[in-house]
């Protein structure tokens, strides 16, 4: 292994790292755009602080929980100690042919906060800031890395042959399950569901939403491309193609279904659709061939639209469609590996999906329960009506602009 190849691989991994970093801006913009102007400051605050919290807790314990080396409890739980411990040769191919220890850490660290950010969208416009920050901290510091260790850390699911290339389940699923629990325990935003059925609460800034989606897509090339863990030309280029085509498929799929259903071309749906396609291909971007990846995307697009409508029918209020995009398409993507890749078994994939579901549901319920007892989860009615920007932050996102806060 030439140090030169090592240098290229490492460079690509670092570039992927910052592409993933940019996804946090994508999430912030998307989430802010699809909610009301009166909660924008709150959303930006959450998403900015989550990044910091995620990175620091991952340095503190997340990384060594997720990649413990040896496991303590069976192959379920391990811990390599607090803080960062680059050993000898941390910066040579003998650590890993693809990256140095620090590259390894920083790439993984950027992923970590994502899980919490996904939750942020589903609980937006009504969750208490402090409670949410506390939840994120615990979820990112403990739940996410332990779950990750089962597969990427070489734990029991890995040994069973469960496959999740870049995190349809390990990242998007893990975040998505908590998003589901969060949206459920918090209940819908005031006015979302009336006797007459679901009443739309419109996002206030579509260009911002579009910026968010395109930046997420852009960052996804690091998310999936970096998960090759090297700059291998064949592998990375294949991943780029499947990722791209699946995103495109997601747009078409969501466009067709939403246009057909509401016979209007719905922007917010095709924007969700592209993300759906991206989440869908994430588990199998390297093992699903390009033609199939289009199909994976199309189906993701159909799923996300159906799911958004279904959740509304069940009165589960997810302002940005986080559950539909990350959980539903995450599950679909994980399953798709079993379907489209001959080397992986559907049953093992299902086993993995279920195990993660159980673990994430249980732990997020527990954490939300404890926080509810401790601080309460939801702002009071008056604060929600006035908007979190004024009630929690005492500032406005668009000072001077004339905005109708209520219809």
């Amino acid at each position, binding site marked *: 292994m030439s140090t030169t190849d090592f240098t290229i691989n490492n460079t690509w991994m670092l570039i992927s790292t910052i592409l993933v970093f940019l996804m946090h801006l994508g999430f912030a913009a998307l989430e802010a755009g699809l909610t009301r102007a009166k909660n924008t400051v709150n959303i930006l605050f959450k998403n900015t602080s989550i990044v910091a919290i995620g990175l620091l807790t991952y340095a503190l314990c997340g990384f060594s929980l997720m990649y413990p080396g040896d496991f303590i409890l069976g192959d379920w739980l391990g811990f390599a100690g607090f803080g960062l411990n680059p050993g000898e040769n941390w910066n040579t191919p003998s650590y890993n042919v693809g990256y140095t220890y620090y590259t390894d850490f920083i790439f993984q660290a950027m992923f970590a906060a994502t899980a919490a950010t996904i939750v942020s969208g589903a609980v937006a416009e009504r969750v208490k800031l402090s409670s949410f920050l506390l939840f994120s901290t615990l979820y990112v510091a403990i739940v996410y890395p332990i779950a990750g260790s089962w597969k990427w850390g070489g734990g029991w699911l890995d040994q069973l042959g469960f496959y999740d290339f870049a995190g349809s389940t390990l990242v998007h699923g893990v975040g998505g399950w908590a998003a589901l629990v969060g949206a459920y325990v918090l209940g819908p935003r005031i006015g979302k569901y009336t006797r007459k059925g679901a009443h739309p609460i419109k996002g206030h800034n579509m260009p911002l939403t579009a910026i968010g989606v395109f930046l997420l897509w852009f960052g996804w090339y690091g998310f999936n491309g970096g998960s090759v863990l090297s700059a291998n030309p064949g592998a990375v280029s294949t991943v780029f193609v499947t990722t791209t085509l699946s995103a495109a498929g997601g747009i078409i799929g969501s466009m067709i279904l939403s246009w057909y259903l509401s016979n209007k071309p719905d922007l917010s749906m095709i924007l969700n659709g592209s993300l759906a396609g991206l989440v869908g291909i994430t588990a199998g971007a390297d093992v699903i061939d390009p033609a199939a990846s289009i199909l994976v995307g199309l189906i993701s697009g159909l799923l996300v639209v159906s799911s958004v409508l279904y959740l509304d029918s069940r009165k589960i209020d997810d302002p940005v469609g986080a559950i539909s995009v990350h959980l539903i398409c995450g599950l679909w993507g994980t399953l798709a590996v079993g379907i489209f890749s001959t080397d992986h078994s559907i049953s093992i994939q299902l086993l993995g999906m279920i195990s993660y579901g159980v673990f994430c549901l249980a732990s997020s319920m527990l954490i939300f329960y404890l926080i509810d007892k401790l601080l309460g989860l939801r702002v009071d009615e008056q604060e929600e009506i006035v908007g979190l920007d004024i009630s929690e932050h*005492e500032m406005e996102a668009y000072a001077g602009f*004339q905005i109708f806060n209520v219809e």
Partner: protein
Amino acid sequence: MKLIIAIIQPEELPEIKEELLKNKIYKFTVSNALGQGKEVPITEVYRGIAHEISLLKKVRLEIAVNDEYVDNAIDSIIKVAQGAKDKGRGKIFILPIEECIRLRTNERGKEAIG
């Protein structure tokens, strides 16, 4: 014919709207406004500086009605607005209208209002 101008709290608009429709007042015009009143000013903080905002966001309702409907209108608004006890619920002003015209039909007077 009277023009009822009501300054209300933004968050009360949806409810007041419903009340008005219940009371057979089907037509009105809404606009945004800022109000200075006795109301406790809210504080905002920006880059470490706290400051009081005394010009608060309000909604301005204009309802033109025939005299016999005036009370309906007032009652609908009061019913909702009196809920809360704190200062700054707002005001209603009643002005005389000399003529009213429905543009579409060119009807005038009492017929035109509703």
